[in-house]
C-alpha cells in the first residue's frame, strides 16, 4: 500500500521524463566536448613518454578508462535539476501540498530520482557504449565478477549519496530563500571533490585520505576505482563502510533539516 503510492509517482514521472529524451540526447552530444578534451590531454601526455610512477601507477589504459567512466558516472549520478527544482518548490510554496498529502516529500523526490536515472540510463547507455567501442583498445574491461558486482552496487549508492547531498543543500532554501546562486558553485565543488577533474589518486596522500572520509569520492571516484581494481578488498570493505555511514548520516540530516525547515516555512506565494 505504502509502496504503491510511490510506484504511481514513478509511472507518471517516467512518462514525463520520456517526453524530454531529446534533451538527454543533446546533453550527451554537448557534454562529449570535455570528454574529448580530456582524452586528447591524457593521450598526448602519455604519448610523450611520461612515467606511470609519476601518475600514481596509472597506465594509459587506466587513465582513459577513468576519464570515460568518470564522465559517465558524473552524468549518471548527478541530477542537475534537483537542487533548482526543490529550491524553487520551497520558495514558491509548492511544497504546501506535500504537507497535506499522505506522501513524504523526500520519498516523492526519491521516486522522481529513480525514474529520472532510469531514463538517463536508457537514453545514454548506447552513446556511452559507442564511446567505449571507439576507445575499445584503450578501455579496460573488467572480467572479475566479484569486482563487477561490487561496482554495480556502488553505482546506486553513488546516485543516492549525490541525491541526498543536493537535496540537503536545496533544503537550505528554508533559511536562505534563494540557493540558485550557489548552484554552479556546489556542482563544481562536488565534481572537483568527487574526482571529476582528475583521479583523486593524483592528490597528495594526506588530501586523498582526508577526502575519502567525506561523502564526495563515493559519488564518482569510488565506483570507478572499484571497476579498475585500484582498491584491494580490504580498502573496498573500509571505504564501503564509510559510504554506508554517510548514507545513514545524510538520511538523518535530511530528516532533521526538513523538520526544522517546515517549522520556519511560511508558504510564500500561496
Amino acid at each position, binding site marked *: 500500500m505504502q509502496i504503491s503510492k510511490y510506484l504511481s509517482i514513478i509511472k507518471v514521472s517516467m512518462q514525463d521524463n520520456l517526453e524530454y529524451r*531529446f*534533451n538527454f540526447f*543533446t*546533453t550527451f*552530444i*554537448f*557534454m*562529449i*566536448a*570535455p570528454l*574529448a*578534451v580530456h582524452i*586528447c*590531454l591524457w593521450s*598526448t*601526455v602519455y604519448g*610523450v613518454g*611520461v612515467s606511470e610512477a*609519476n*601518475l600514481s601507477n596509472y597506465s594509459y589504459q587506466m587513465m582513459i578508462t577513468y576519464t570515460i567512466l568518470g564522465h559517465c558516472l558524473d552524468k549518471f549520478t548527478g541530477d542537475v535539476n534537483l537542487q533548482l527544482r526543490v529550491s524553487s518548490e520551497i520558495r514558491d510554496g509548492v511544497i504546501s501540498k506535500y504537507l497535506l498529502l499522505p506522501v513524504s516529500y523526500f520519498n516523492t523526490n526519491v521516486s522522481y530520482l529513480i525514474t529520472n536515472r532510469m531514463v538517463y540510463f536508457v537514453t545514454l547507455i548506447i552513446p556511452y557504449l559507442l564511446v567505449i567501442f571507439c576507445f575499445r583498445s584503450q578501455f579496460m574491461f573488467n572480467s572479475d565478477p566479484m569486482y563487477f558486482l561490487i561496482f554495480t552496487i556502488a553505482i546506486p549508492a553513488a546516485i543516492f549519496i549525490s541525491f541526498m547531498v543536493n537535496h540537503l543543500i536545496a533544503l537550505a532554501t528554508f533559511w536562505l530563500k534563494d540557493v540558485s*546562486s*550557489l548552484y*554552479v*558553485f556546489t556542482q*563544481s*565543488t562536488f565534481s*572537483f571533490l568527487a574526482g571529476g*577533474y*582528475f583521479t583523486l589518486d*593524483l*592528490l597528495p596522500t594526506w588530501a586523498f585520505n582526508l577526502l575519502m572520509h567525506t561523502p564526495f569520492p563515493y559519488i564518482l571516484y569510488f565506483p570507478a576505482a572499484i571497476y579498475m581494481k585500484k582498491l584491494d578488498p580490504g580498502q573496498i570493505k573500509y571505504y564501503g563502510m564509510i559510504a554506508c555511514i554517510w548514507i545513514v548520516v545524510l538520511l538523518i540530516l535530511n530528516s532533521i533539516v526538513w523538520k526544522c525547515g517546515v517549522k520556519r516555512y511560511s508558504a510564500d506565494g500561496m
Partner: protein
Amino acid sequence: MIKSIKKYLTIYYMFVRSCLMKEMERRGNFILMSITTSFLNLYFLFYYLVLAERLDNNFLGWGKNELLFFLGTEILCHSAFMATCFYNVFTLPDHVRTGSFDFLLIKPVNTRFLLSTRNFNFSTFSQVLFGIALTSYSYWKLGFKFSLPKLLLFIILILNSVMIMYLIGFTLMCLAFYFTRISSYGSVLPYRGFFAIYWFARRPENIFSSQVIQILTYVCPVLLIVNLPCKWMIRTTSPITIIWAFIFSIIFFLLSQVLWKKGLQKYESASS
C-alpha cells in the same frame, strides 16, 4: 557618427551604473557570488598545480608558471566575457519564446546593442582582478621584462577573445529565431553548445595534434581565444595568426549581423 558613438557610450555608462546600483542593493549576494566564483578558479588553479607537480614541472613543454599564466589569461577572458556579454546575449531565446523581445524592438536604440549590453555582472567581473594577479605573478616568476607595447597588444588580444566569444554566443542565440518549434530547448541548446565549443579553448593547445591545432586556429578558431594572447606574452606566435584573429572577428561579426537581420524578419512576436 561621433555624436552617435557618444550617445551609445553614455547609454552603456548608464547601464553599467544601474547594474552597479542594483548589485550594491544586494551586497551580501554580490560578496557571496564573488567568493563562490573565486572558488571555481581555485579548483582550476589546484588542477594545474597538481598536473605540474606530477609531471615534474613539464606539462607537454609547459612549466608550472607558464600553466599559471595560461590559467590567468583564461580567467581574464572568461570573466570579462561573463561580466559583459553572457547575461545579455543568453537571454535572447527567452525573449523570443515569450515575446518580450517586442519591448527591446520598440526602444529608440539599436536593438542588437540593447540586447548585448543591458546587463553588467559585477560579481563575475571581480574575477578579472584574480586573473590580473595570476598573470602578473607568473609573468614575473618567468623572468620576463615589462614591455608596454607587448602588454597593450595582450590587452587588445584579450578584448578580441571576448569579442569572438560574444560572436559565437550571439550566433548560437540567433538560432532561437529559426528553431522556435523546439522552444523549450531554445535556451538550453545554444547555452550547452557554447560551452561545448569553449571547452576546446580552455587547455594549452599542445594537447592537440598539429593537424587539430591548424583546424582549431583557422577553420573553427577557438584557439584564438585564450591560447593566442597567452602565446603572445610568454611564447612565440606568428604575426599571420594575430592578423587572422582580427580578420576573423570582423568576418564573424558581419556574418552574425546577416543572421541577426534575417532572424528579425522571422520573429513572430509570440504571445503578444
